[in-house]
């Protein structure tokens, strides 16, 4: 079986789904001729033509607004927004229409589209190329938000996203686009949305994480073995709707929790998860749940980026804090 990185896995998923579903269309800036600035859509226009892999004008709101119109007509658009920093012009369409059209029309019209967006920091990028908007998106009714953490996961989750009858925003952690290489099967397989992944079992503490931070948590967990701390790691996969059940089951077992996310601290998803734990497993807790997050500052340029991003050291500190409460 071929070993692929995340870019190749997503490319494979897109290629196979374009073959399987002739209603699928890919659109975005530079996705066609160039094959995407990260090469994610490489070779697809060659294979499927300019009518199905479309280079659009430079207009983010236009890309997702027209994608809505296509989706309502029965096409399955997979739109790309080049970087999460440029997603914001789309929020009008996403919040005001994409997430609402099914509800507004009581089901007469619906919006089976996917918006793919490279997101997250750690690539020493220019400003606006390192943000994590998942909490903003999770707060919007009517859309789903998915974040893969490995190449295998990316293909399975993307196929589920494309086939979902409702709008999905698929955030791709660009930091690990090429960092991980693993076996990714050709042929159809899906990973269901709304179900988290138990990355590893552990009895001492539950760490909830997603995207590129999964790797940092695994790293921290290795270090913690030296301190005889046994870490259970949950990779959320779907931010919204979240797999609350797996989180709660784990917290009830371990009694201690740490949440890790790159996004700024205030009103990040860490807060939401702690609220859920509060509602459903408060009496199981042996310590307050800790959050290891970015800061309430714009993600800095490369010289300061190492201050911003959560790293294994901060994760280890947080775990030790809850263990010694």
């Amino acid at each position, binding site marked *: 079986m071929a070993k692929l990185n995340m870019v190749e896995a997503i490319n494979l998923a897109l290629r196979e789904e374009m073959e399987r579903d002739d209603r699928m269309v890919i659109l975005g800036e530079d996705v066609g001729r160039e094959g995407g600035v990260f090469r994610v859509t490489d070779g697809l226009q060659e294979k499927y033509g300019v009518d199905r892999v479309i280079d659009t004008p430079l207009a983010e709101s236009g890309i997702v607004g027209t*994608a809505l119109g296509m989706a309502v007509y029965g096409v399955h658009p997979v739109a790309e927004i080049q970087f999460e920093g440029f997603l914001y012009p789309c929020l*009008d369409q996403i919040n005001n229409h994409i997430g609402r059209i099914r509800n507004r029309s009581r089901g007469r019209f619906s919006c089976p589209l996917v918006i793919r967006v490279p997101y997250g920091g750690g690539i020493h990028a220019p400003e606006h190329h390192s943000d994590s908007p998942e909490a903003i998106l999770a707060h919007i009714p009517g859309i789903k938000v998915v974040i893969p953490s490995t190449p295998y996961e990316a293909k399975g989750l993307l196929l589920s996203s494309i086939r979902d009858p409702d709008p999905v925003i698929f955030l791709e952690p660009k930091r690990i686009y090429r960092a991980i290489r693993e076996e990714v099967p050709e042929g159809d397989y899906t990973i269901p949305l709304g179900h988290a992944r138990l990355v590893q079992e552990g009895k001492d503490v539950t760490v909830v994480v997603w995207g590129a931070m999964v790797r940092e948590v695994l790293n921290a967990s290795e270090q913690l073995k030296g301190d005889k701390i046994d870490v259970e790691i949950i990779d959320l996969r779907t931010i919204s709707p*979240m797999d609350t059940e797996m989180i709660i089951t784990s917290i009830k077992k371990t009694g201690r929790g740490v949440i890790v996310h790159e996004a700024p601290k205030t009103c990040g998803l860490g807060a939401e998860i702690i609220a859920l734990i509060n509602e459903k497993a408060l009496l199981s807790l042996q310590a307050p749940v800790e959050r290891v997050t970015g800061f309430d500052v714009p993600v800095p340029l490369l010289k300061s980026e190492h201050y911003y991003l959560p790293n294994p050291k901060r994760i280890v500190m947080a775990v030790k804090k809850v263990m010694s409460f």
Partner: protein
Amino acid sequence: MSLFEDYHPLKGKMFQILKPDGTLHPGQTPPISDQEVLTLYQKMVFIRLADQRALMLQRQGRLGTYAPIWGQEACQVGSTVVLQKEDWIFPAFREIGAALMMGISLKNFMLYWMGNEIGSRAPDGINVMPVSIPVGTHPLHAVGTAWAAKLKGDKIVTLTYFGDGATSKGDFHEAMNFAGVYKTPTIFFCQNNQYAISVPRSLQTASKTIAQKAIAYGFDGIQVDGNDLFAVFVATKEAVEKARAGGGPTLIEGVTFRFGPHTTADDPTKYRTEKEIEPWKPLDPLARLKLYLSSKGLWREEVEQRITEEAQKEIDQAIKDAEAVPPPAPDEMFTSVFAEMTPQLKEQLEYLKSTLA
């Protein structure tokens, strides 16, 4: 010369066939038979009366905030009547006329404005999108649908309505631009009713006409007298046929006037005077059709009475039917958000129900 060449926006001519005095310009012929004119006039009367009734219902607390069409009937009737059943319309929020013409029942229309989303569930086969409130955001949808149809080889067109205010929005620019690049079968129909709430047309754009904005995007624009049913009919028909034949998009600017308030929550006396409104009264789209039909022996006071009575009866029934629909159950707030309720939504609905028990 084609209509669009003849009335190229930079030539400064507004396309008109039927003058306010009910006579045609020399050399012009009516595009439809006199019987058809009478039928459409009847529809416009119905729309105006239904619109007035909605205003009244709002004042009585039986309808939510409502945006009246008063004055713009010809724009909507003249443009929808040339569409085929498979075509789609993408309205903003002032399109009672277009919705009814496309086959939305007055009952359903009222249900929406009474505050029940079920009214926006257009019947299968009637391609009328729900009301879109964020100004200028929906022409993109019209472009996308047209684009998808074109890619699939379906010969449908999409028609989207918006006002002069919407042409200042970024999404309008993006929609026009995409339509031009991909030559989508989209008709952009701007109802220039001279106001965006209180902001007059003169403050909205420095362009001499709205129609000429199409030139920048590489396609035809035409300014028509929006109160002239015949001109609206002909211009839209040409645009629709062109689009269906693969000729791409058109921008039609219908010059009209908003006689009523922006919505029932607006008081226009704060920003315009009777003096400003007066000149538009003789240009009323229904008035000139009355004069035209009179001259053809098809309109008399008795005809008006009959049409009005029939309309009011039908409106009465539609309101009765709409008000007979039971208020939505709490479930309805949750069950159409996704194809299948998420665990979170199920839980939240259960909670809501527990608070109502």
